[in-house]
């Protein structure tokens, strides 16, 4: 006969207020197999844990049930307690009588009765428990960072500074990301390039950092500590070792059709190009879709002009396969497509631009060399209207837009308005806003400066429609405070478009089995307590891929993610989850059904000599790689002979719970 101990926690009044804890403890005492049952105010406190330890020793308990809060809260605590008293930690079961009982039932008799049932189910289960020992797996001491924007760069630098190898995989030809496209940054107005480019250079020169640019992640397998990633390094058609980044080829290239991505397509570039002057790595790349050589087989002007002989038209994609202990997602964002909001005439006029386009129009390295001009005719604008919340804060059942606040638009719009007024005091600037949201250090002060010092015309209300009237843009909007409909004739309209996760995020999330929300932002393991970790072990989140953020927040989160990665990589081995699948070789039919449903490829089949009372000989049997198995149990249900079972959640354990509940 087993000796089970039951420990009923009051959780102060959290449980005791609606569950008669003494009655539960008393009732459990008469359950078969229970040799000790008691209650205590806070079982998780040191005294409470000592009570458990003493009982385990005194009554020689071989299994315990703690009736307390959710196992997600304190299962680990009580397992450690049991272990300290010499009991296998997996001989502990938790009856969740707080979240699933006392907190949701107001009636004491009802709560008490349910608590007893839950306790009985846990007792029934623990009787079927078996001591389990966790396996261990080694940790590959290298991290992969997906995305080379400020988030990825910062994480990589921090991890590398701690002494670990880091690879950054970036899909575009240069690192730098969105921040590299920005002109000035709020609320300090320092230039983005001035603070970003030194970090880009540092990442490039760091001996522990390996930049894999113009590359895409193709596949990820494995698990925490032991990921294997396959990366496709796309052909640049330029020899990286030979190219000096002199840029002669980019000037000589006769094709001028490619839209300049760095300038948001506001101007064009050659088919061979370097994304921007400070690109890292400073290497040319051929855009084959616009290259005359690739289209006609002729041209080759770049090849003739390259004194380094770096042009390699026949270069092919390269596959890099490498092992990593941790993966950081830093995939960033893009502005939504403003053409969905055509009431603002985005597709109808070149003078209606998004804020990121405006950023390029203001930038000294931009298409107009930093002189603000109207894109349609290159003339100086005299009146500019900014429209906030374009595509943000939309209802889920609206025809378009995102439900969330994009968070950064209020501040960058204030920045734009201020910069325009600073540089061109003759320009009238209007900002239509719903709310101005400035929760950040020095943020509201910044916005007030735009209003008070720079005379920016902030109008509470939304623009209903923008129409093209000759050379002017007719902005028709409401001013809620004056209860008027305004008609403003502007030269330019700037749309503060919502931001959304980079389009590659969804497929990367699927590869990593990292969960995402309905907006394709990555979900954190806990919204407050584990904000930089994905629920999938070994996957960490950095920057806007997790939700809208400004630069300081992104950098802070990037550092936090790095510290989590460092914590993981500093371990030599990881203790695994012992609740894994296991095949009873005597019962196994060798039918391979389980192998087909395993998402981790943890099951293999072998011909093996098997000895048992009814069978002796060689047979085909399933084998589970315990380091790879994550314990989902999909295999167990496919097995018709119940040869495959899951430790910790065995058929017998679950059936015992069912029986106890339906008793």
């Amino acid at each position, binding site marked *: 006969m087993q000796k089970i101990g039951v420990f009923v926690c009051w959780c102060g009044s959290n449980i005791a207020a609606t569950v008669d804890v003494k009655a539960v403890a008393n009732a459990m005492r008469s359950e078969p197999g229970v040799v000790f049952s008691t209650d205590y105010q806070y079982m998780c406190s040191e005294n409470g844990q000592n009570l458990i330890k003493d009982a385990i020793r005194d009554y020689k308990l071989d299994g315990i049930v703690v009736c307390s809060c959710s196992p997600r809260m304190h299962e680990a605590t009580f397992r450690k307690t049991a272990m300290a008293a010499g009991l296998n930690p997996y001989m502990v079961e938790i009856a969740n009588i707080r979240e699933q009982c006392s907190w949701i039932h107001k009636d004491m008799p009802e709560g008490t009765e349910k608590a007893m049932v839950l306790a009985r189910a846990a007792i029934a289960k623990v009787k079927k428990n078996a001591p389990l020992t966790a396996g261990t797996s080694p940790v590959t001491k290298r991290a992969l960072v997906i995305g080379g924007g400020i988030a990825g760069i910062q994480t990589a630098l921090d991890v590398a500074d701690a002494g670990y190898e880091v690879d950054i995989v970036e899909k575009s030809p240069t690192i730098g990301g969105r921040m590299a496209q920005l002109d000035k940054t709020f609320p300090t107005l320092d230039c983005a390039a001035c603070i970003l480019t030194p970090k880009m250079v540092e990442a490039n020169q760091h001996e522990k950092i390996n930049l894999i640019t113009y590359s895409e992640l193709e596949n990820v397998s494995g698990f925490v500590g032991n990921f294997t990633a396959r990366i496709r390094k796309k052909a640049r058609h330029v020899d990286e070792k030979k190219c000096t980044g002199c840029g002669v080829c980019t000037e000589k290239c006769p094709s001028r059709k490619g839209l300049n991505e760095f300038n948001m397509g506001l101007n064009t570039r050659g088919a061979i190009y370097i994304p921007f002057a400070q690109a890292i790595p400073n290497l040319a790349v051929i855009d084959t879709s616009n290259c005359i050589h690739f289209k006609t087989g002729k041209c080759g002007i770049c090849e003739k002009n390259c004194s380094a002989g770096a042009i390699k038209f026949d270069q092919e994609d390269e596959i890099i396969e490498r092992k990593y202990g941790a993966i950081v997602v830093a995939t960033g964002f893009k502005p939504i497509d403003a053409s969905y*909001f*055509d009431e603002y*005439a985005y597709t*109808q006029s070149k003078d209606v631009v998004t804020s990121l386009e405006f950023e390029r129009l203001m930038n000294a390295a931009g298409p107009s060399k930093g002189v603000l001009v109207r894109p349609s005719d290159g003339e100086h604008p005299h009146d500019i209207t900014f429209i906030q919340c374009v595509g943000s804060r939309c209802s889920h059942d609206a025809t378009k837009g995102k439900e969330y606040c994009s968070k950064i638009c209020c501040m960058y719009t204030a920045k734009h308005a201020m910069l325009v007024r600073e540089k061109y005091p003759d320009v009238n600037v209007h900002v239509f806003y719903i709310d101005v949201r400035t929760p950040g250090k020095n943020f509201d002060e910044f916005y007030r400066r735009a209003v008070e010092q720079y005379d920016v015309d902030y109008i509470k209300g939304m623009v209903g429609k923008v129409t093209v*009237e*000759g050379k002017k843009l007719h902005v028709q909007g409401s001013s809620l405070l004056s209860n008027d409909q305004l008609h403003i004739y502007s030269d330019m309209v700037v749309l503060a478009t919502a931001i959304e996760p980079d389009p590659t995020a969804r497929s990367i999330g699927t590869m990593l089995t990292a969960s995402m929300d309905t907006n394709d932002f990555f979900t954190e393991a806990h919204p407050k307590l584990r904000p930089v970790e994905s629920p999938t072990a070994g996957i960490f989140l950095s920057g806007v891929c997790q939700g809208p953020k400004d630069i300081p927040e992104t950098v802070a989160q990037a550092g936090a993610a790095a510290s989590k990665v460092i914590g993981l990589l500093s371990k030599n081995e990881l203790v695994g989850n012992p609740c894994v699948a296991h095949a009873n070789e005597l019962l196994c039919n060798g039918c391979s059904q389980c192998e087909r449903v395993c998402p981790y490829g943890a099951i293999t089949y072998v011909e093996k000599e098997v000895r048992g009372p009814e069978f002796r000989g060689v047979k085909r049997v399933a084998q589970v790689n315990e380091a790879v198995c994550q314990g989902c149990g999909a295999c167990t249900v496919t097995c018709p002979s119940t040869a495959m079972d899951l430790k910790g959640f065995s058929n017998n354990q679950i059936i015992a719970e069912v029986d106890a509940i339906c008793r």
Partner: protein
Amino acid sequence: MTYSYYPGCTLKTKAKDLDRYGRLSAEALGVTLEEIENWQCCGAVYPQASDEIATKLSAIRALDAAKGKGQKLLTLCSACHHVIKRVNHDMQTDDNLRLKANNYLKLDEPYLGEAEVVHYLEMLRDEVGFDNIKKAVKNPLKGVKIAAYYGCLLLRPSGVMAFDNPECPTIIEDFIKAIGATPVIYSQRNECCGGYISLEDKPQAQKRVDAIVKSAMDAGAEMIITACPLCMYNLDANATEHRLPVKYFTELLYQALGIEEEKEGA
């Protein structure tokens, strides 16, 4: 292809010609329009109130008739199109209306929004194809600068109407190109002309019409075409300071296809 055809009240009374142009042009383009038997007026205004049932029944009857024939329901008037398409959407999505309307109508088999509602212009675009119309045109309207007037009912709400880009539509401009004329883009083409309030508040209607006609004129238009008899009337009758000829699109199609001459010649 044969469509169940819902002409609507105006095209059967005051504007018979527009109906005739539409039918003959369709025939010339290889599309047969079978008028729905005993159709009733759709009411011309979509009943927005959620408790309106009776006012939606005539549309449901027409939809059920098209369903019974296994045909798409084709409309020529924008108002009819708007009402019938939205009622059909309600029948697909609103359980309460489904239940009550079917209880009331006692059809052989309940109507659950199975029919597809197609506007004449959509038929031209998706079934015939503007390229084919271009080929069939005998009298291209060369050099005529035409402003397409969309108004409200074809485009909005776009979630239900799904007719074209609600803020920057192209279908009528494409039509204008197909018949050999030159489309004129102007800012007011999808702004309301005030047709619905032309009886209630003539000054407001006049104000709206003037804004639209002026916008078209400023853009160089010589003519406005519409797909709605009410808009057509309103843009003409309530024009005060600015005035342009207003035509129904089927009339131009009929002319361009050269149907009259063909008949006379035959």
